[in-house]
């Protein structure tokens, strides 16, 4: 791993570089917090009773929380929360969050999949929970440079 304290430089990146390896813990309290800030009140994210009644193994994390954490791993690397221009995932497995103190561990890895015209790169992400892949086809296009869209002209790049 390179030193995360420095902003990544487009010229220094090579396809295949693993640029992100980050772990997050998800506990029930995180789901309550996410429900609050997002407005997503679906009870499958806070009630075991309702989650099981609809055939889930138990309370599951909001897919958007999992995606947000994967996004955080990417924007931490870029050192710019506004650097992600495209971000796509498939939610392939539910992230089941037990009602205990330990929660579950989310492992996020990202590698450089493609160098787009400077200063953009496409990353492929691998996101696992307790060893099992929970996101599929996860990719992000990241701008490694200052935003241009807040100048007078909005470009379509």
């Amino acid at each position: 791993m390179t030193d995360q304290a420095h902003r990544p430089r487009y010229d220094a990146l090579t396809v295949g570089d693993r640029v992100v390896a980050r772990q997050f813990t998800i506990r029930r309290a995180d789901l309550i917090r996410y429900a609050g800030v997002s407005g997503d009140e679906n009870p499958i994210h806070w009630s075991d009773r309702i989650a099981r009644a609809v055939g889930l193994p138990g309370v599951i994390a909001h897919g958007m929380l999992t995606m947000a954490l994967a996004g955080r791993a990417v924007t931490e690397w870029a050192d710019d929360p506004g650097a992600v221009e495209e971000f796509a995932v498939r939610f392939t497995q539910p992230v089941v969050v037990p009602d205990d103190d330990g929660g579950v561990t989310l492992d996020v890895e990202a590698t450089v999949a493609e160098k787009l015209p400077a200063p953009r790169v496409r990353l492929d992400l691998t996101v696992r929970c307790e060893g099992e892949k929970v996101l599929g086809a996860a990719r992000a296009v990241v701008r490694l440079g200052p935003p241009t869209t807040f100048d007078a002209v909005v470009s379509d790049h």
Partner: protein
Amino acid sequence: MTTGTVSDFVGRSYRPAVPFDVNRTIIRHFASGIGEHHPACHDVDAARALGYPDLVAPPTFGIVATLPAAEALVRELGLDFSRVVHGEQRFVLRRPIIAGDSLDVVVTVERVRAVAGSQILTTRADIADADGAPIGTATTTLIVRGEA
């Protein structure tokens, strides 16, 4: 809830009566809720130092702005929210959402299909600023799980 009924919604659009106003507090609140402590989400000077006019929203924040229209859609379709799980999500952003934005969100039903007892609903949210300039799109696939 039948596929025939739900399919009739393809092509329909939902646009909340009021824009989604983004202020500094809601960006800080959302960022904190996902554990995002980057100063550009919390401190205006830090955001300006990165080249933004004001606090920057994390890349998935747009989903919050699409929720009022998406929930209206789920209600109109008569779907049981507890049977809805997220299948896929994609954001394409011309620029990040910034504190001070007044977001105009139009959610359109793009596709409905039935797979193995579940219904799969794809919607596209077009997000624009107060002047109508596009900011980005959020494409959402929801899976409505059938009765076991």
